[in-house]
């Protein structure tokens, strides 16, 4: 294969494949633990695997730092990047698009579902204040934003969206321990399905379901059963541009 399109890890020389790893094994420190750590690193593909640090944590655990050469080669031609599938529009363009296509203000209902009380991320997208120098969705003349805050019950969120005749539901999930974020999203998906049984031509149309949070897998929209996933560093304009794009595609369909 052409060497242009494959990459290896780079320590200080092209192709040296050097990587650093650290991990804890549930066993007491000592030669046996170090050998186990070396074996662990070897199984991760490091050869040679240099156990450069081993520290006992209490009587039952040992922490390791290992450096080594990884044979892993990534073929860049095989990398599929979640390219932005929509054009990034300016505030002006976004307002214009909404006006011309929807002929009314686009309604967004947002909140953090379940026990998750983190609102900073959602507020960064919704509030006028915005994020990274960009104003939030509230700032767009043609967007009506209903920010319900945190700790929402999924069903209540969906019902509220129904009442507000929302075009999109924005859900934020920041706590991911034990896949809390996935479970909470599932609750919303189910609630949506109850209200809009797949085949129903019910009006208003089912709102778009957009989820976001720092630890979502950007490619997981389909698996989650949502329309779009946004992850760390998202800016309000990206979200607004996406909404315009997705909704107009829908009407087209």
């Amino acid at each position: 294969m052409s060497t242009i399109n494959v990459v290896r890890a780079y320590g200080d020389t092209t192709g040296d494949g050097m990587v650093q790893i650290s991990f804890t094994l549930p066993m007491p420190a000592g030669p046996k633990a170090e050998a186990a750590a070396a074996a662990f690193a070897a199984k991760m593909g490091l050869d040679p695997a240099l156990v450069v640090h081993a520290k006992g944590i209490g009587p039952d655990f040992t922490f390791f730092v290992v450096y080594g050469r990884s044979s892993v080669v990534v073929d860049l031609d095989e990398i599929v990047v979640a390219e932005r599938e929509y054009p990034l529009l300016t505030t002006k363009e976004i307002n214009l698009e909404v006006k011309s296509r929807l002929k009314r203000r686009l309604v967004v209902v947002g909140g953090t579902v379940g026990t998750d009380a983190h609102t900073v991320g959602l507020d960064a997208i919704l509030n006028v204040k915005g994020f990274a120098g960009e104003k939030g969705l509230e700032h767009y003349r043609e967007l009506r934003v209903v920010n319900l805050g945190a700790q929402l019950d999924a069903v209540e969120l969906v019902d509220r969206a129904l009442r507000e005749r929302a075009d999109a539901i924005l859900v934020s999930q920041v706590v991911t321990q034990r896949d809390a974020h996935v479970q909470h999203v599932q609750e919303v998906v189910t609630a949506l399905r109850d209200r809009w049984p797949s085949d129903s031509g019910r009006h208003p149309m089912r709102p778009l379901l957009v989820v976001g949070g720092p630890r979502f897998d950007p490619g997981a929209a389909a698996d989650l059963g949502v329309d779009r996933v946004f992850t760390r560093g998202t800016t309000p304009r990206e979200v607004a541009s996406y909404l315009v794009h997705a909704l107009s595609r829908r009407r087209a369909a």
Partner: protein
Amino acid sequence: MSPPTRRLELDPRTVARARRLAARAAAPVIALARTSTTTSVERAVLRLAGLAGADAEGIPWVNRLVDAVRADVGLEHGVALPVWHALAVSEHDDLSTLAQKAAAGGVRFTLPSGTYERSAKTAARRDVARGIATIDRNRRSRQRLLARLGDPPKPWIYLIVATGDIYEDIPQAQAAARGGADIIAVIRSTGQSLLDYVPEGATRDGFAGTYATQENFRLMRTALDEVSREVGRYVRLTNYASGLCMPEIATLAGLERLDMMLNDCMYGIIFRDINPQRTFIDQRFSRQIHSRAGIIINTGEDNYLTTADAVDAAHTVIVSQLLNERFGLEAGLEDWQLGLGHAFEINPEVPEQFRLELAHAQLVRELFPNAPLKYMPPTKHMTGDVFFGYLLDAFFNLAGVMTEQSILLVGMMTEGIVTPFLSDRDLALENVRYVRSACAGLAEDFRPAPDGFIARRAEQVLAEAVDLLERICDESLFAAIAKGTFGVTKRPPDTGKGLDGVVTQAPGYYNPASVLLEGRDA
């Protein structure tokens, strides 16, 4: 410990003025709290009297009983009179059988009067006194253990465990103690503070934290007593009171000899959308318990800086600390119990960031020289760059040492990613151990120029705090909270969770616990 060094020339008159203003702002709220009660306060009374356990659905008997009483006669007179009257007139000799019967709808509660009332009061007081006696006993054994095993020197190293599973928490807490932790805090499951009851038993199913239950408290305290003997110093245990069950969790903490409790007069309002009135009433009772139990409280001002900017909002931290101090003292806490919170949350890219942090930390230190300040590490600006995060935590530790903070909650390099790994905690301890040892006496060499950058910044923040307090006095604390003064989060007085649990005391309201805690029983 010896009084902290003064490095700023704060104007004592300004400081006194700030305290007067805080007292004035707090007064109406205190009045409200003195004349109201809540479902959770009443449930706490029953817990003190020894009512424990839950029904098949896991709803505690205290909830069942209070609900039954409320249905029949309301809570305006408190739960004690109707309950102990029922015990007296009926054949069920103990609270739990009464509760079960009541839950099944088999009891009609009435308000006693005359001699019935007097004997109900006596009986209630007698039973509740047992609970308080347990709290007193725990306080004494803590003193004994501190004397025998030794009380670690300040700053105390405060570490969090948060697996969601008490049986994973325990080995991690013990490892942390062996590694040098002086205080272990068991973070609660994300949802708990919104539950209007306290779960029962040992739990393994929390999200990003472990449920606060009496049994989990007991298990962890026992495990820490064990490791305390091993490491030869008393390792303190902390949990979280804030939430809809503040009074009850405070009570359970006293009954299981916890040593510190997160307990803030406004955290639940701002970060959990709990009703402001409910919170202010609950915090007062729970602090009366803490006061009796010799528990140190930790307040939550640090959290404001995660939603507000740490430079712009620095003065809101000071204002909140003065209010927490006021509410705390009024509830009977002493200075040594006021673990006021603040944090190292300025964006590391701000020029002179570290000196600004020193200015803030030193200001708090000098405003509250006798309080065991709880200093929180960077969180908001911790990213996935764990190396830089580890460095930032070291500078936090350094600021803590240089400004003589009392409690250092050591930061985790994975703050921006996951709840701490076992190894993160060990690395964090290595970090703080180095800073404390290598810079042991550095505070001696830290002498901000009298009119320099640090001194001027501290003065500015104090001045802004005084201005804000004045505005609060004019418009009322409730209005200020509604306007989003703290943590740029707006919370109107009549919204939020738990308002339905708030009850105004009727004349003749009787609460044996308050009577005993306030020493009105003489």
